[in-house]
């Protein structure tokens, strides 16, 4: 087991929850080989909501996948909660995801035969939480996201935005230390988008957690603490939301 006690950050000092150094990733072979991440350095601090922006194809999803441990970087160092993920076995990574991470990707990948509540409860089922209790927790979170009426619906009966909220509920239900979201408001109207981001922010604001949100949606920029800009596989600009670029 790798559950160690994570040292609490001293008040007022930002402690890194994610530390990435020199991450590279390329796809394909020979001539078709493309470099997608070209040496990414990034710190994500505890208690912050970090927005990741940049043009299409700049490598945002790829970076998020590497941080989530569902894609291996070619080179570089990645540590999360002071554990060096780079050296983890596949099984250890899976267990780490189960215990500390969750994500909402552009593909929701809801299980088509499970209801909204069951889908949202999946991370708890995986952890062995009893079915009834897991479904209750999932129902509460879905209700907070305005999905209280659709608990028993199958994904095929839900709109794109509703499916997205189920995926978000599924990411929130396990109370993760690090939450990764890829365009979480893409299919939502302004009001619902607001609700969703408030929920995400609620997690991020807690002192020993963090949220990374990939977004094009300028409406939610105000919810972030920092905005990190990616361009062609590298981070070229970091901006404090209430301050000047660094």
């Amino acid at each position, binding site marked *: 087991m790798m559950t160690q006690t994570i040292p609490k950050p001293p008040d007022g000092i930002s402690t890194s929850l994610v530390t990435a150094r020199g991450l590279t990733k390329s796809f394909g072979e020979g001539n078709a080989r493309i470099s997608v991440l070209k040496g990414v350095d990034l710190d994500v601090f505890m208690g912050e909501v970090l927005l990741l922006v940049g043009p299409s194809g700049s490598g945002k999803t790829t970076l998020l996948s590497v941080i989530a441990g*569902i894609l291996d970087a070619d080179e570089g160092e990645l540590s999360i909660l002071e554990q060096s993920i780079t050296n983890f076995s596949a099984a250890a990574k899976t267990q780490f995801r189960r215990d500390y991470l969750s994500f909402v990707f552009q593909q929701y990948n809801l299980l088509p035969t499970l209801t909204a509540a069951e889908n949202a409860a999946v991370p708890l089922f995986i952890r062995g939480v009893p079915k009834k209790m897991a479904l209750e927790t999932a129902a509460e979170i879905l209700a907070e996201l305005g999905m209280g009426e659709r608990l028993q619906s199958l994904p095929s009966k839900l709109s794109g935005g509703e499916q997205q909220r189920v995926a978000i509920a599924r990411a929130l239900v396990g109370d993760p230390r690090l939450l990764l979201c890829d365009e979480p408001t893409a299919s939502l109207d302004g009001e619902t988008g607001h609700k969703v981001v408030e929920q995400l922010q609620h997690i991020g604001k807690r002192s020993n957690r963090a949220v990374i949100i990939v977004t094009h949606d300028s409406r939610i920029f105000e919810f972030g603490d920092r905005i990190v800009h990616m361009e062609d596989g590298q981070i070229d600009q970091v901006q404090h939301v209430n301050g000047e670029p660094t």
Partner: protein
Amino acid sequence: MNFVALKMLFGDRAKYLMLLAGLTFSTMLIVQQGSIFWGLMMYSQSGISNINAPVWVTDPNINQVDEVKPLADTAVTVVRSVPGVEWAVPLYKGVQRARLADGNYQQISLVGLDTATLLGRPHTVFEGAIEELRSPDTVVLDQWAVERLGGPDVIKLGTVFEINDRKARVVGIADTQKSFQNIPFVYTTYERALSYSPPERRKLSYVIAKPIPGVSPESLARRIEAETALGAYTDEEFSWKTIRWVLKNTGIGVNFGTTVLLGFIVGMAISGQTFYLFTVENLKQFGALKAIGASTGMLARMILLQSFLVGFIGYGMGVGLATIFGLTAASNEQLPFVETWPLLGGVFVALLGICSLSSAISIRKLAKLEPAIVFRG
């Protein structure tokens, strides 16, 4: 996660029914073909099963029951002198010609039972009585004789026909196992059977015997072989010998065996294929679970649960349908159909093998799957 696995399996009705239909069909196909094959094999040893004797004494070079190699008359006495024999009686067995009132000829399998004891007689007599054979010119025939010699209106108690120009009067109708060529059985006494058949130098077809209590048929057969120059088999051994001979020396073994084997291969291929498709189609869902943090072991348990469950259900339904088919076929006696435990067990094991194999392939795929793939837009 078991309930998630079950919902994945049963939730998609169309996919589930396809999968179940594939497994049910292939199980049914194999069980049905195998049972018909075995039914045919049972036909081939009806010459043994229709005579109730635990031990058969034969010519030492006998091949199979229908290829009679007559023994010297002294064989009965010789066998009686072997220790452990409770009884040993002569048996006549031969194919003869019956002539019906309408002038038609029909082959019959004539069985002559020991006149005094009628040992070896059929278990079940539908009508009349076997003891009536003690009256002159009498025979007991079987349900196939009724069918083949003109139907129940023509062949009934009291009907008189001829066997090789000698009179035969029906005094009983017995239940027998149908024979391979559907030649009906006609039982009479040993002496009368000899008088029905053309004169030959040797007349004694077989000696049938029973061991005293405490001696097994096997040990009696071995003892007779050791102490006489005769061949001796238990009824089961003789049946197997006959079946092996039929398999080896007639086209049935190769022809029908090929059909059964093809049925088996096709059935297993269908099962394997449907299973494989099912799991591959679900790979994305399993990949998502893996990304969320389900371990490979947990996913493997889910896949195994799904495949074995649907495997069991498909097996049960397939065997059920095949059995219903068999009962229907057997009730109109159109087809031989003998379902045996080794066949059912073999199909079960094969199906488990297929389930395990396709699960193993999926689990391997899943173990190697980079979960990021399933989250790409």
